[in-house]
């Protein structure tokens, strides 16, 4: 998305870019929150809240499994839809509506490539909480995180080369994976009452 929306700063004007980036972030938060509500309702419907102590332990275990996967100690296949978000959204919905639709699509998480396995733990956590509002809040944080890099990338005073941006990302992907693994392990420790 950085490569799609950021060039608007150069091609159009700053106001258009800001509108596009903001609508992308809004769409992402909205979509992720909706997913959170659905997961919370599912958890509530199957009465997961009654078995919370065990669920907490299970959640902690899944967090650890994801931490191990992100640290590349073990490998297991990540399940996601092998597709990309459609490039024709801006042609149909315009410069502001298009990024909003991209946000709606990407905010779901599972509809495109999942690069970090912690997403599965988040989904499980949202379901196990069995509280629609709390689940919505949790996934909204995911949606906000998902959309914000687009906003940050466009804040540069000088035009940025999105190709070199991608290259730099891949060069530092291992470090990002380690940060994710550490955060997952820390959270797992809290849920399993290790510390």
């Amino acid at each position, binding site marked *: *998305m*950085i*490569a799609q929306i950021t060039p608007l700063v150069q091609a159009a004007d700053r106001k258009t870019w800001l509108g596009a980036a903001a609508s992308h972030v809004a769409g*992402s938060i909205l979509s*992720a929150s909706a997913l959170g509500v659905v997961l919370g309702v599912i958890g509530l419907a199957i009465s997961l809240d009654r078995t919370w102590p065990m669920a907490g332990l299970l959640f902690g275990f899944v967090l650890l499994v994801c931490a191990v996967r992100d640290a590349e100690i073990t490998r297991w296949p990540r399940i996601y839809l092998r597709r990309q978000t459609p490039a024709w959204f801006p042609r149909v919905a315009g410069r502001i509506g298009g990024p909003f639709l991209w946000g709606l699509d*990407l905010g779901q*998480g599972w509809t495109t*490539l*999942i*690069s*970090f396995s*912690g*997403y599965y*733990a*988040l989904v499980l*956590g949202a379901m196990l909480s069995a509280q629609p509002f*709390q689940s919505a*809040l*949790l*996934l*909204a*944080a*995911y*949606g*906000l*995180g*998902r*959309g*914000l*890099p*687009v*906003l*940050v*990338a466009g*804040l*540069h*005073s000088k035009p*940025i080369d999105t190709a070199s*941006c*991608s290259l*730099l*990302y*891949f*060069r*530092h*992907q291992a470090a*990002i994976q380690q*940060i*994710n693994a550490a*955060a*997952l392990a*820390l*959270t797992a420790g*809290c*849920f399993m*009452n290790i*510390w």
Partner: protein
Amino acid sequence: MLRFWHAVLLLHQSFLRLRWRHLRVFACTVAQFEMQDLRKLTYVGRIGLLPAVALVGLFFALGYGFAFLSPLSAADPTSKLWLLLGLGLLIGWSNGASP
């Protein structure tokens, strides 16, 4: 980069002498640093990893802060919620920054 170390030096001096004048100079220098140099940081600025880690660190600090300060300790659901919000933000950011 020179301005950054200048700001660090001023902060050090400010804490030693505890004078408002130094603190004011420090605040101005930091503001200048943030406006100009922060945007020029190559990698972290471009994909927003620095603000992501700072925000997530804040959430984790809040989460663990609540856990240690609360009489319920780690059983306190507030601390767990903060941790999960931080985690959600980090995972979202990691996925969102990927090309």
